[in-house]
């Protein structure tokens, strides 16, 4: 098999120089081309920091200590640096939770879109860039792309901005798309549309998708495989069907047991934290990390 598009191995993360707090304690996961993988966990479990490390963003703040390895599209990214920076916007892209605040309020969509396209092709002319931007916006079913390009984010609806952001993320045909709770700031229909778009993408272009979520309902519907993360550790890794029919880790079990009590599919709050939530990782059959297979 080919190398996964994203392979995170024994990732550890510590914040702070003097008052250190360790946030990730050895996270491993991988996503292959065309796969849709979900990372679920409660708030503060380390989902977003994992994503930001994979993008090489957190490393640039200079306040973190990273151990382990992250390979993105064949590039080692754990230490950050130029190589991963050059992949951003071209080979890896990210969509954010609240698209309206993720678009710059001082510039029209047009200018931001040109900038995105020029990260891949610096010499692109304005006219060519605009033509491509319109095509990209049409692809995500924006009714009047020219008008959207002329707008500021605050003039468009949340759903529109979400599409704009997805169009930007996809404009340079990335091989990996990371979606950190996409659209949870928006209404349910927009969330559903977003997932639909990403599903298409994985199917038609073979893009690897890592979906971060704390909504088990969404995960069940969307993902091929699921990693459950608890306090900076992966506690269970399974195919989606396996996980929901046969949860094996005490934490996952407690989560699934709690689900019927709540509405909306958000991650239930577990009032009781049992010590066996910290049990070692459980990996279902056929779900070993690629490097664990080799003798």
């Amino acid at each position, binding site marked *: 098999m080919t190398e996964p598009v994203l392979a995170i191995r024994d990732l550890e993360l510590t914040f702070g120089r003097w008052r250190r707090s360790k946030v990730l304690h050895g996270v491993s996961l991988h996503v292959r081309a065309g796969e849709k993988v979900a990372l679920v966990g409660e708030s503060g479990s380390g989902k977003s920091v994992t994503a930001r490390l994979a*993008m090489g*963003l957190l490393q*640039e703040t*200079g306040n973190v200590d990273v151990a382990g390895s992250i390979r993105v599209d064949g590039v080692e990214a754990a230490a950050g640096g130029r190589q991963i*920076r*050059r*992949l*951003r*916007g*071209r080979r890896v*892209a*990210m969509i*954010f939770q*609240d698209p309206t*605040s*993720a*678009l*710059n*309020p*001082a*510039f*029209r969509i047009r200018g*931001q879109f040109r*900038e*995105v396209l020029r*990260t*891949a092709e610096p010499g692109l002319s304005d006219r060519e860039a605009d033509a491509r931007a319109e095509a990209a916006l049409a692809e995500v079913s924006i009714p009047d792309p020219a008008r959207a390009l002329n707008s*500021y984010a*605050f*003039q468009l609806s949340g759903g529109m901005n979400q599409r704009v*952001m997805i169009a*930007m*993320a996809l404009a340079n045909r990335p091989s990996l798309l990371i979606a950190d709770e996409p659209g949870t700031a928006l209404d349910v229909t927009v969330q559903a549309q977003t997932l639909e778009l990403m599903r298409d993408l994985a199917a038609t272009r073979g893009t690897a998708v890592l979906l971060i979520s704390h909504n088990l309902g969404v995960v069940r519907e969307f993902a091929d495989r699921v990693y459950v993360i608890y306090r900076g550790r992966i506690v269970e890794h399974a195919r989606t069907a396996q996980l929901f029919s046969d949860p094996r880790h005490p934490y996952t079990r407690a989560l699934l047991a709690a689900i019927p009590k709540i509405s909306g599919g958000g991650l239930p709050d577990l009032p009781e934290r049992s010590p066996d939530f910290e049990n070692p990782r459980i990996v279902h059959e056929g779900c070993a990390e690629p490097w664990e297979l080799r003798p």
Partner: protein
Amino acid sequence: MIWKTLYSRLKASLIVMIGISILIFAVARVMPGDPARIALGANASAEQVAALRADRHLDDPLPLQYWEFVKALSHGDLGKSLFTNRPVSTDIAQFLPATLELVVVSGLIMALLGLPIGAISAHFRGRAIDQIGRLVALLGVCTPAFVWGVILQLLLGYFWPIFPIQGRLMDATPVPPTVTGFYLLDSLIAGEPGTFLDALHHLILPAVALALGGMGQVARLTRSNMIEVYGKPYVEMAEAYGFRPWRIVSRYAFVPAFIPTLTILGLEFAALLGNAFLVEKVFGWPGLSRYGVDVILRKDLDAIVGTVLIIAAAFLIMNIVVDLLVTLINPRIRLSSRRD
């Protein structure tokens, strides 16, 4: 809507001008000392003093004097200087351009140094470059302009004499024919690059001395506004989408941070007018601020009122320009206003 903003600002400014004129008119006359006696000197006879007082209506009641002043002002007459015996408007026309030239160049220096220093500090926040930037800004803020003037004169005019320290031109350089009163412009209009360079050479030290305080303030504000912007999701988005760091500092983080900075930039610019007089004093700069101080010391009534009104008007115009720029540059305001 731009026009609506302009109209309401002009209205407010007019009210402010009326208030200021009454205030300065009264204060100038209530100050102790007989202006006629000061103007004529200790040797003048009591009759001469009385005659001058009568000639200038100084013995009339204050409200009447003010009324006469307003009437004259309505045909652009600011009265006559007791000292030079020339119309105040002539004096002002002579001295104002020198001050404006100093202030405009100083304002440019302030913005062109302050904004990048703040932006670069914010980009390298917490690192050595930031520390240096903050130190420079702090030094600028906490040292008065005239102290800078003296320091610059000592360093660059005396110990290492590469700049002239007095006046607007060398004695040997002919004054360019007056078009704008700005020597930099007039010399170019007259096609005399030598005069231009000489004027620039004279202008640099006083303009820098005047600029440093506001420069520090602008740098500090730009830095803190940009650090706030760096915490926004749209900057992380710009990084995640591979925008080059340089483009982020100079554009995608800078512009949103510049919108709130602009208001303060305008105030600092206007404040340069007020700070100019000590700098003009230190550099023997023949400007309006120095003229203003001289006329106050001489209790030259009409000249005091005229100078203060002109400076106040410059202040208010500056504020209006800033308000309009803020309206133009901030898409939220610009677009929300287009609808109504």
